[in-house]
């Protein structure tokens, strides 16, 4: 699986969340994702980018085109050097929020994509990678 082409976006303010959504959408259109799949990954991108900003204190989003054999896909990687997540299993649960959200961002994003990977170290930061195949 190779990272064919990608772009990196900074996430430091609310306007950056709009930019992450737009970059995700543009690449999904380029890849020819169906409207439903496009909507799903842009929504997941919005959730994860907001977590990066709100809880991670800002970070980066990598928006990349990837291939699995002949099958193209869209991969997004969100990374921050914030406080990290103590209990990932708990954070993934629907309805769990450490802030004042609905606690749907992580669990919901996982349902909206084909692949979801999260890793986090307390005091070091959090990294979430999602992929939607065409």
């Amino acid at each position, binding site marked *: 699986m190779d990272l064919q082409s990608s772009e990196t976006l900074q996430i430091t303010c609310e306007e950056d969340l709009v930019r992450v959504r737009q970059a995700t959408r543009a690449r999904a259109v380029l890849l020819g994702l169906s409207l*439903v799949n496009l909507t*799903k990954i842009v929504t997941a991108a919005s959730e994860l980018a907001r977590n990066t900003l709100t809880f991670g204190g800002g970070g980066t989003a990598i928006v990349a085109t990837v291939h699995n054999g002949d099958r193209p896909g869209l991969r997004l990687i969100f990374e921050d050097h914030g406080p990290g997540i103590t209990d990932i299993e708990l954070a993934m649960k629907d309805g769990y929020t450490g802030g004042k*959200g*609905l606690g749907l961002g992580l669990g919901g994003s996982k349902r909206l994509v084909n692949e979801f990977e999260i890793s986090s170290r307390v005091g070091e930061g959090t990294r979430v990678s999602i992929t939607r195949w065409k």
Partner: protein
Amino acid sequence: MERIPILRMGDVLLVSIQVDMHDRLAQTLQEELAERVVKDRARGVLIDISVLEIVDSFIGRLLGRIASISRILDAETVIVGMQPAVSITLVELGISLDGVRTALNVERGMELLASSISLRTQE
């Protein structure tokens, strides 16, 4: 400052969301709508989201809050024009929009509001 226009049609305030809103702008809309409901003595609020390409948990929560605030101020909210792909995604995300009335398009939404306003006026 950037704002989302709020139009008035009789008893109803009409908001047509035309852009991918950043969070602060969405928040502003909630506050301005509450003020306008009181100032214009509106009985209904119609929010057209047909142009919105996604509704994430933030916007979903905001729509729910707008409906609750309006209800307390004696106005009813109807959300219209949600794209099918958006509704599928919302459900999968886990947002049910409980307590928010929806209609297919502006016309149906206005009908819904008109009949519920006249019902409430008779009471």
